[in-house]
């Protein structure tokens, strides 16, 4: 475990050395996600200036939810972006074989190989939105609240990761996993807003099937003081289950790759 942590650190340092060479590219990449978020946020702000309530949710409450999902998304974006490109960059070209002849876990190698700096933009946006909205809502940043936020963010990131792992493994069969991944991933956009604005079916989809709701809505509701019972604490469990399933699916994918080869 320790060895892998050290190793990841080294991969990260090397990656930053490369990124620093392309400094402008680095800045543009990191800020590109910010700009895209700005369009969406600006829309929300413009609308809610005139209509202070989104079906019962105030601007800052909406921003809290938006910020939480953006932060969770960014964690996965930064550390596990290679799942998107595994088909095109690694399997199709045969570069994946290299991972199989090195004495480290191939999934670890795949993920460590590329820290994605684009995600930094989303990380900043998400963090700023959360802090800003919490303060505007007079929710104190107590130790327990901060801890809750930390767990929520990490769980949210893990939910994104687990789902991506499940869908990304399809690359072993389809060569390009991106269409399949997008079919699941794009559903997180629902969770940018309070789940109560959607019909029940969508709420159920985003809670129990593609549980992005645990990355934003449920933690936000808890912090806002809504009564939710155990839903407020479910996020880490959901995340763990998804990651475990994801890893099992990944192993199946690996077996398929070695069984039939390409």
């Amino acid at each position, binding site marked *: 475990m320790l*060895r892998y942590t*050290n*190793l990841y650190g*080294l*991969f990260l340092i*090397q990656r930053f*050395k*490369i990124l620093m*060479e392309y400094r402008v590219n680095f800045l543009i990449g990191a800020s590109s996600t910010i700009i895209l978020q700005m369009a969406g946020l600006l829309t929300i702000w413009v609308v809610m200036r005139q209509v202070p309530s989104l079906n019962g949710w105030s601007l800052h409450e909406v921003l809290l939810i938006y910020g939480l999902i953006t932060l969770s998304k960014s964690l996965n974006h930064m550390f596990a972006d290679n799942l998107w490109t595994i088909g095109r960059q690694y399997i199709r*070209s*045969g*570069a994946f*074989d*290299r991972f*199989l*002849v*090195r*004495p*480290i876990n191939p999934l670890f190698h795949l993920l460590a190989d590329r820290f994605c700096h684009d995600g930094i933009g989303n990380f900043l946006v998400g963090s700023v939105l959360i802090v800003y909205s919490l303060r505007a809502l007079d929710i104190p940043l107590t130790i327990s609240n901060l801890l809750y936020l930390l767990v929520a963010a990490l769980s949210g990131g893990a939910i994104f990761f687990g789902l991506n792992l499940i869908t990304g493994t399809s690359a072993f069969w389809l060569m390009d996993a991106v269409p399949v991944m997008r079919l699941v991933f794009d559903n997180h956009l629902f969770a940018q807003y309070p789940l109560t604005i959607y019909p029940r079916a969508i709420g159920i989809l985003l809670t129990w099937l593609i549980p992005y709701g645990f990355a934003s809505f449920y933690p936000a509701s808890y912090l806002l003081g809504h009564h939710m019972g155990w839903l407020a604490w479910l996020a880490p469990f959901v995340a763990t289950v998804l990651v475990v399933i994801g890893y099992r699916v990944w192993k199946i994918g690996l*077996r398929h790759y*070695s*069984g*039939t*080869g390409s």
Partner: protein
Amino acid sequence: MSIIQTEDLTKIYRLNQKDPGVTGAIKALVRPRHRDLVAVDQISFTVAAGEMVGYIGVNGAGKSTTIKLLTGILVPTNGKVEVLGRDPHRQRVDNARQIGVVFGQRTQLWWDLALIESLNLIAKIYEIESSRYQFLLEQFSTSLGIKELLPIPIRNMSLGQKMRAELAAALIHEPQIVYLDEPTIGLDLIVKERIRDFIKQQNREKGTTVILTTHDLGDIEELCQRVIIIDKGKLIYDGPINTIKDRFGKFRTITFETCEPITQIKLPPGAEIITPDRHSEERKLALRFDRTITTASRVAAEVMNQVEVVDFSITEPDLPSIVKQIYGGALQGD
């Protein structure tokens, strides 16, 4: 003592046959069709520690698949493979520690990193002890000449520099076996020589076992005492290099292009006309001569004395023709 052992090693690919487009995809779901491709067909051989084995065959013969089976990337459909007493797939990590692989066209180094940074990362991955690592870096700097290359990223290297860097990366953790898949492809002679010398040195000093797949017969001649020839997945020859050299290495082919069609021609001893193909043109004459008996100039002179020659070319025996001849029983009764 054998460190690599294969027994009836077989790999069959099941290829799904699919028409293009969306209708094809639906058809494939409803009624899937496939055909089986036997890439490796019951191949058995053993390799002893310290051997340098050439593994040759034409494109598509099954060389890469065999390497992937030996390195644990693929699982055999049938048969067994054992490397250093392990199943290379089941005990992937342990096996990986002991092997080095060079995939000719695909580099293992990080594209944008300086070579030294790549090597540092590799050293960490393979847990090379740091003083040993420094010592080896020094050693490789001289024997492979990579000292000047250390600060250069791979993307800026020439093909020859890349290959030298690649070899350093593959051998820096001192593996017991190294698999070289087409390592000299596209390189000029000087670089090839350097690389061949380095490989020989590693084998000599450290007893590294070398499995070399290549099209280049020069590589085979220089490095390997033993060759295994595979064609269409089957092993068709496994034996000392000398037999091959004696049988084929001494031949050369000269193809003449003449002004008029040739009716009769007298040839010096050691030369013979290669049976023309069905589509032979009358103005082309292909001869094969034995270098140990006669020379190119003597043959050419003889021919040019008798007919007017417009152009001619000399070729070394190439792998496809050797394989064809082996199939034709050329090695039986030797």
